[in-house]
């Protein structure tokens, strides 16, 4: 019975296979397609080992793309949340450096001029807020020391930031005034006043040189413009190292001519005669004739060291605002002028 059934099934399968032979590809046609395929594969290179290795790795983990996307999103989210959380941090907190870094980036991205000044103002206000927040924290036995440190840190930060902001605003105001935009300058001025007033409420002293409204600074600038010589003199007295270096080169090193000449050009007019006399430099015809300078050098060269030792300490000022070094130099200048007058009269005779 079972053999009979099996025979019938086989017949049915044969019928099916016969019917399915309609799907077969005739041998000749198959050969033609094979020839086409074989010639095509000669032109088509197989996938490289690197890409296949990559394919294997990706195939082993079919979720690599969603995983990558998720990790990138998670990273961005974590960074964003950290930066956001840092905006509530106070000086001394763990996230405070993140906040400062964010502000630094903000400042660097801001265009120069008014936008940058406004960013500085915003940051100064933030410092003042931080200071008031720290002041609002109630003192407890455990946190007294930490709190006082935080308060001090916040005060220093606020001082620096407010000073920087006011300085920047003053510059913007000056630029606006130069352009004749008085209305905008006034608005900037009011910002300065408000910021300084706000700083005062938090007991933050803004430096005097800046001025509460920027007017003092302007006056100071005007004064500087009126007396550029004085300014130049002050700058040079504050930088004695260059002078000393210049003199040393002139006296001992003959190869340093260029450097010493460049020093001469920048030297203040008050110091010029004595320095040229002491170092034996002959390239200043407008100051003194050559022979007289050389003659004077023998007399004044001994006083170089004391002059510079005194000039390195600009804090030692007399009542009329001149340093002792400047006084000595003036005296030497007078002496040199007198001598030159004598030689001129002798030559005339």
């Amino acid at each position, binding site marked *: 019975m079972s053999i009979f059934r099996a025979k019938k099934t086989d017949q*049915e399968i044969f019928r099916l296979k016969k019917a399915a032979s309609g799907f077969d590809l*005739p041998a000749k046609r198959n050969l*033609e397609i094979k020839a086409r395929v*074989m010639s*095509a594969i*000669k032109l088509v290179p197989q996938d490289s080992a690197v890409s296949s290795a990559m394919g*294997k790795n990706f195939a082993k983990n079919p979720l690599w793309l969603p995983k990558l996307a998720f990790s990138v999103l998670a990273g961005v989210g974590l960074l964003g949340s950290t930066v956001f959380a840092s905006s509530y941090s106070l000086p001394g907190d763990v996230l405070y450096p993140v906040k400062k870094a964010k502000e630094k980036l903000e400042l660097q991205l801001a265009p120069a001029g008014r936008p940058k000044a406004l960013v500085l103002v915003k940051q100064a206000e933030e410092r003042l807020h931080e200071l008031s927040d720290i002041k609002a924290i109630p003192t407890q036995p455990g946190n007294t020391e930490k709190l006082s440190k935080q308060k001090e840190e916040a005060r220093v930060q606020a001082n620096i930031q407010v000073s920087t902001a006011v300085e920047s605003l003053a510059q913007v105001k000056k630029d606006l005034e130069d352009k004749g935009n008085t209305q905008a300058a006034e608005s900037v001025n009011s910002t300065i006043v408000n910021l300084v007033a706000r700083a005062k409420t938090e007991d933050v002293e803004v430096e005097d040189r800046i001025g509460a409204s920027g007017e003092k600074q302007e006056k100071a600038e005007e004064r500087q413009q009126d007396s550029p010589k004085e300014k130049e003199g002050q700058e040079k007295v504050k930088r004695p190292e260059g002078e000393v270096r210049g003199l040393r080169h002139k006296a001992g090193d003959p190869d340093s001519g260029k450097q010493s000449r460049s020093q001469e050009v920048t030297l203040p007019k008050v110091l010029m005669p004595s320095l040229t006399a002491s170092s034996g430099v002959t390239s200043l015809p407008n100051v003194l004739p050559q022979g007289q300078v050389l003659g004077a050098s023998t007399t004044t060269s001994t006083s170089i060291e004391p002059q510079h030792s005194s000039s390195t300490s600009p804090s030692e000022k007399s009542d009329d605002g001149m340093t002792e070094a400047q006084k000595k130099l003036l005296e030497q200048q007078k002496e040199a002028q007198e001598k030159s007058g004598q030689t001129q009269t002798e030559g005339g005779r």
Partner: protein
Amino acid sequence: MDLSEQIKKAQNGDSQAFSRIYDAYSGKLFRYIRLKISSRQHAEDILQEVFVKIWRGLPNYDQEKGTFNAWVYRVAANALNDFLRKIYRAPETLEMSEEFESSKAPWQQDATDMGKVLDAELSLKQLGSLMSGIPEVYQKVIEYRFIQDLTVEETAELLGKTNLAVRLIQHRAINKLKKLRKSNNVNF
């Protein structure tokens, strides 16, 4: 020679080995494609494309991940999908005469005579109409076993069933088709 050895050689760029792979799979793949595509000409083009894709992707094939058979059918399925997508985007009218024009199909000129071709087409149509009357899983087993000529093991792997289950389904499907054929008075 063992096919797995040929596969390894072909993976290293041996075209002779690939030629043997072609011989082993061209018939099966053509039937598989022809089942989905009514146009013989298109089926031939797709077959050619499938073999070029197999050649290109051979270095990516990893024996540990599955049988070569399953991989080859996956490549063919992707090529078919690409073709169908293309057709869907730019529909093309295929005339029935195309299937029977001897000038367009060189193999037909030498296929003893046109009568055989027509018989084969008719048988296919009849088989198709009978197949639509049996459950889907029966259809698949008949397709894999007798049209694509796969083994019981390969069919079981593709359907995710045991060998025994495949044999059982095959037996029931044949009986069902026989009944249908007799009741519809169809002979192929």
